[in-house]
């Protein structure tokens, strides 16, 4: 008797709506399509004031981890030191790529280092940005036409380049301000949050080519977005 009423209740609750009947199961558990919910949530995120807030918050919490491969690291030390105090832009150098959203590539990147750069970048949480510092990071600089270097913009998507050999600490401060302007005007952070991926990711070297010499399976890709 009770079993019959239970099924009858389920049918009567459904009424004429077939969709509700599918969502509402016999054991009173909701069965929801998570992909659909994520798509709707991203649609809500894309409208309204939330993207502007995301961009504003990201612009003033740029915490860099620095990949100090060359002499530009001295200038980074000066840039966040007391004289050229870069912390006034809301930026603080941090030790680990897992808690930071900005990577600064200081100087030339060799082919063996390119794998480490890619792994460090993949460990960072979204939305993440990159600054390439020095003329070595632009086109090779002193090591131009050499057999053992790569350009950082072939390994990870780079937002801001700083020319100079090495650049002055003022130039580093300018790059932070320029990245803030880019995030807030072009909406890099919020667009990345909605779409989950950047457009310029397709223009970089595949990871098998960078890390294939290690002869091991590397899967450190972040699961965000």
């Amino acid at each position, binding site marked *: 008797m009770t079993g019959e009423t239970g099924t009858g209740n389920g049918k009567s609750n459904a009424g004429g709506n077939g969709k509700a009947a599918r969502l509402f199961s016999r054991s009173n558990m909701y069965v929801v399509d998570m992909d659909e919910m994520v798509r709707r949530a991203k649609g809500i995120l894309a409208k309204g004031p939330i993207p502007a807030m995301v961009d504003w918050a990201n612009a003033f919490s740029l915490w860099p981890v620095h990949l100090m491969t060359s002499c530009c690291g001295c200038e980074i030390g000066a840039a966040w030191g007391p004289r050229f105090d870069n912390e006034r832009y809301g930026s603080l150098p941090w030790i680990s790529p897992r808690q930071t959203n900005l990577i600064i590539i200081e100087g030339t990147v060799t082919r*063996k280092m390119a794998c480490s750069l890619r792994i460090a970048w993949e460990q960072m949480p979204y939305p993440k940005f990159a600054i390439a510092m020095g003329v070595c990071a632009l086109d090779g600089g002193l090591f131009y*036409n050499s057999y053992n270097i*790569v350009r950082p913009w*072939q390994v990870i998507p780079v937002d801001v380049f700083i020319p100079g050999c090495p650049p002055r600490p003022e130039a580093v401060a300018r790059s932070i301000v320029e990245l803030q302007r880019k995030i807030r005007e072009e909406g890099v952070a919020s667009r990345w949050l909605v779409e989950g991926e950047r457009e310029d990711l397709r223009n970089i070297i595949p990871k098998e080519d960078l890390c294939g010499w290690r002869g091991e399976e590397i899967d450190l890709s972040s699961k965000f977005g």
Partner: protein
Amino acid sequence: MTSAVSLVDRVKGILGPGEGARVEQQKGYLEVTVDAGSLRDAAARLKAAGFDHVKSVTAVDYPAKNQIKVIYHASSMLDEELSKYVVGLATLVDRDDPVVPSLVGVWLSAEFQEREVYEHFGVRFDGHPDLRPLLLTPGLAAQRPLRKDFKVVEEDDYLKSTFEEYTSTRRWV
């Protein structure tokens, strides 16, 4: 200058009559070229006489003579008189199949530098405990990039504007 001359005599005395005759003196620098077979023996004698570490291990490629010259630069940290000088212990090997006896057993500081010579010149060190490429990826080390016949891909004065255009002339691994 007198001390440099006495150093020549001293190194000649260390190395004995055979190899000692081949000591060449340049400006503030001594170089002795020995056979690959007697390299370990000469290094042991230098170590026993006070040259206690290797400053650098390097190689020179001679494609015309079909030879590779491997040079160990030894100096001293404990002996004050010997620490002013650097003695180059060199050996000439065949360029097609260069094999040199490893001196890691004599000078421990030669280990990583022999690995560098191995990856850049393809010189194999017989008896090295861990002969792997150090700074280069294995694919690049197989091309032996510091030999004279290694051709670097020429780039233009201007950077290629697109990624496809740039990578078309490049090998990555």
